[in-house]
């Protein structure tokens, strides 16, 4: 019984994540299919925008999965396949947007916020130390006395 459970678990793990990729879409060559899966997990479905084309059941996602596999069989590199889709649908289809003039705020925003926070804290601390009231004459005299007492 235990052995059976272990076998089922092992098989389930070996099956991996197929999402919405249908058996008749898959390539015979496991290497090409693996590349297709990698590409499919990086491309956004333009119909249901929070899913990748591998996860989506949308008809267009199916067409794009087939297209990706056709390009791979035709000998395209992974980069070329992704560029092929990006040329048609724009950078939006990339799950991981590239750093360019449109997305710099997205990528650098956290760093900028951290910098703004850091500068604010620095200004706050400097302001605090500066704004201590200066010593009055009697306080200074008292302090001098304490100093002398220590030296003696």
């Amino acid at each position, binding site marked *: 019984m235990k052995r059976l459970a272990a076998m089922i678990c092992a098989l389930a793990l070996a099956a991996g994540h197929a999402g919405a990729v249908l058996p008749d879409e898959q390539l015979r060559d496991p290497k090409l299919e693996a590349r297709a899966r990698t590409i499919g997990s990086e491309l956004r479905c333009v119909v249901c925008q929070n899913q990748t084309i591998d996860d989506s059941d949308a008809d267009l996602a199916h*067409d794009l999965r087939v297209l990706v596999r056709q390009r791979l069989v035709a000998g395209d590199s992974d980069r070329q396949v992704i560029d092929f889709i990006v040329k*048609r649908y*724009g950078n*939006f289809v990339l799950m991981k947007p590239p750093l360019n003039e449109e997305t710099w705020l997205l990528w650098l925003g956290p760093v900028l916020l951290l910098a703004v926070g850091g500068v604010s804290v620095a200004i706050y601390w400097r302001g605090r130390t500066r704004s201590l009231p200066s010593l009055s004459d009697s306080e200074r005299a008292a302090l001098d006395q304490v100093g002398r007492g220590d030296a003696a």
Partner: protein
Amino acid sequence: MRSLIYLLPVLLFGAVIAAFAIGLGRDPAILPSTLLDKPLPTFDLPAVRDGDVGLKSSDIRGQPRLLNVFASWCVSCRFEHPVLLALKARGVPIDGLDWKDQAAAGARYLIDNGDPYARVGNDQPGRTGIDLGVAGVPETFVVDALGRVRYKQVGPITPDDWTRTIAPLMDRLRAGT
């Protein structure tokens, strides 16, 4: 000067709220076309209507034209259809691309609902649609006299879209700018 620093978080918060207000008001389904100011991709599609010639990318030039992507199964296309018929009556040249649809179903749709198109091509495999960056139907491209895409409308053209955006653009294109 010091009060300005205390005001800064409030101002930043206001800026974030403003950014969200603008961002949330936008429809994320509307993607900018990568074809803007570029020539239409080449295609040569079979006919939808009986005994017709179909649609080639080289047909869509000579004067500013609309290329309307539709399908018989598309609900919002039926909503848009009367607008297209009205535009045809006004002499606006419109070509149709029947996307991911059986040609016979597309032909039936045009017989039942009226036919606003000068030429119609059938793209049952949907590959030309992908070349055009079509994410759904209806979508409409404004193509200039040189066959370049100048605008893409995602979703049905309402009379308002026509008078505010598309008609002025086509007037400008006709004037040759």
